[in-house]
């Protein structure tokens, strides 16, 4: 009986463990180890160089620029996305509009679209001649605002940020709506009786009661920017103009698959991995509330 149970358990766990060890654990261990090697090309023998790849990283201007761009996106995009999501979620749950389910359906829709489809769509929206953004600005007499959005070093990153926010806001809105539905309605009724405005209720009830969920979504959203920006940037701008929209993931990718600089690419991978872990910890700490 005992052995039959053990055999059953082992058989059940085996397929998952096999896949997990082969395609997840092993490659993860590899990036830590191989980031210490000079390895340029599949046929080459990796040569141990210690921390050289890491020190190179901080003298690599393109890497530093990509790091700065990523940092900016990781700051701006989560803040804007989560704020929009929160406001929409509380409007849709608290103001009892009849058509609220339509808004919910529509707003959530971008988050199930393929990132590639979104990226292609938005590169045409921003297109200097074919896109409706510039044509729209000209139509309402704001010609001077029309820009080659993705070709201008100053605005390209902001243009990409808008796409990222457009993609994700609905997703977090649905999460927050679920959270708000879980808050006891009596709290709002009591506040209503005390004469608190909707904005006050939002700040003093909704946000504190949702705080645990908000904390998690901050981390989700920061990580999301890291991975989604890869697809958005590589399809929309390929890092251009002149690396001004380069993000760390696109840089890692081009170091590996364009320059065959595997060791260096893996060092960048380790660095990003550590940074995102640290960021998750920091945002977790910062958003922790006093005693609980």
């Amino acid at each position, binding site marked *: 009986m005992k052995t*039959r149970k053990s055999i*059953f*358990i082992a*058989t*059940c*766990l085996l*397929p*998952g*463990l096999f*896949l*997990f060890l*082969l*395609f*997840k654990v092993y*490659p*993860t261990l*590899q*990036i830590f180890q*191989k980031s210490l090697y000079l390895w340029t090309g*599949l046929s080459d023998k990796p040569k141990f160089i210690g921390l050289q790849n890491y020190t190179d990283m901080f003298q690599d201007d393109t890497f530093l620029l990509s790091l700065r761009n990523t940092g900016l996106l990781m700051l701006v995009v989560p803040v804007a996305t989560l704020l929009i999501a929160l406001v*929409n979620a509380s*409007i849709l749950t608290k*103001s009892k*509009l009849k058509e609220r389910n339509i*808004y919910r359906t*529509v*707003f959530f829709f971008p988050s*199930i*679209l*393929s*990132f*590639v*489809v979104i990226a292609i*769509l*938005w*590169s045409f*929206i921003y297109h200097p001649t*074919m*896109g*409706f953004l510039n*044509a*729209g600005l000209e*139509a309402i007499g704001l010609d001077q605002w029309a820009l080659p959005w993705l070709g201008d070093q100053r605005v390209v990153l902001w243009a990409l940020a808008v796409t990222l926010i457009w993609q994700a806001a609905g997703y977090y809105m*649905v*999460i927050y709506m*679920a959270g708000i539905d879980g808050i006891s309605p009596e709290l709002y009724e009591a506040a209503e009786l005390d004469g608190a405005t909707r904005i006050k209720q939002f700040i003093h009830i909704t946000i504190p009661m949702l705080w*645990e969920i908000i*904390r*998690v*979504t901050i981390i*989700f959203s920061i990580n999301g920017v890291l*991975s989604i920006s*890869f*697809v958005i940037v590589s*399809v929309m701008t390929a890092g251009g103009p002149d690396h001004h929209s380069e993000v760390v993931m696109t840089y*890692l990718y081009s170091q590996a*698959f364009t320059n065959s600089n*595997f060791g260096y*690419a893996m060092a960048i*991978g380790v660095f990003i991995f550590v940074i995102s872990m640290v960021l998750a910890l920091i945002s977790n700490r910062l958003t922790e509330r006093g005693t609980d």
Partner: protein
Amino acid sequence: MAAENTVNRPAKKAGSAVGKTLLRLLLLVQTAAVVYPLLWNVMASFKTNAEIMDNPWKFPKGMEWINYVHAFTTARIGEYMLNSVLVVILSMAILLVAAVPSAYVLGRMRFRGRSFFTNFYMAGLFVGGVYVIVPLFILMNSLHMLDNRFWLSAVYATGSLPFSIFLLTSFMKSIPHDYEEAAMIDGCGYFSTMFRIIVPMARPGIITLIVFSFFDFWNEYVMAMTFISSDAKKTIPVGLSNLMQIQQYATDWGSLFAGLVIVLAPTILVYVLLQKKLTEGMMLGGVKG
């Protein structure tokens, strides 16, 4: 008191009506921001090349169905789509074979090492995608797994494994233990108890998982781009991004827009049908704080 009330009420009502209108306006602007790009895409797919280059706010003059024909013939959207269907089915099958038994065992059976394995998979939630793409590529190269749709699917399934086990384990835990005991008394072995009793009872969780993974697998881009090299095996997202690059020289924009619509259509259809499931699933497995 009474007088004050009757004076106050209409004023308050009027105020809230104005507020409601303002809120509606805000929501409608956002609705337009989501819907218009998609509508614009559909319109562009019916335009001639010259019309596309002209004013983007104009309606198409005629219906250029030829764009759709080109999308299927010269741009090979149909082929890419079949590849995507194949990869999604394969990934789903591999994922279910790996995740359902694991989640059953981790969620419902007592044995040594259970919490170790659970934490092991949890850690996997944090190690994602692009970091490990380089060693994954090198590994698959040395095992001759590149340019192979089955192994691509296996990698997809592995990527979803931690989340799937997390989702299904919590679902499995909610099923009362009496069912298994009854099955055992009736002479069911471990395997038949799992397949005949537990799997059917966990069906809502499994369906949620399938809906979620469908979008993940259907839309995945980076790995498909890296691990598949021959054009005949490419999936839809990779095919589309290639198409976009080609069209910059060939300037047949209409068929690119038609290609996008062809890809959007099934997504919209699945979304409309499964919208509820999807958002329910997010509440179930998504964020619980």
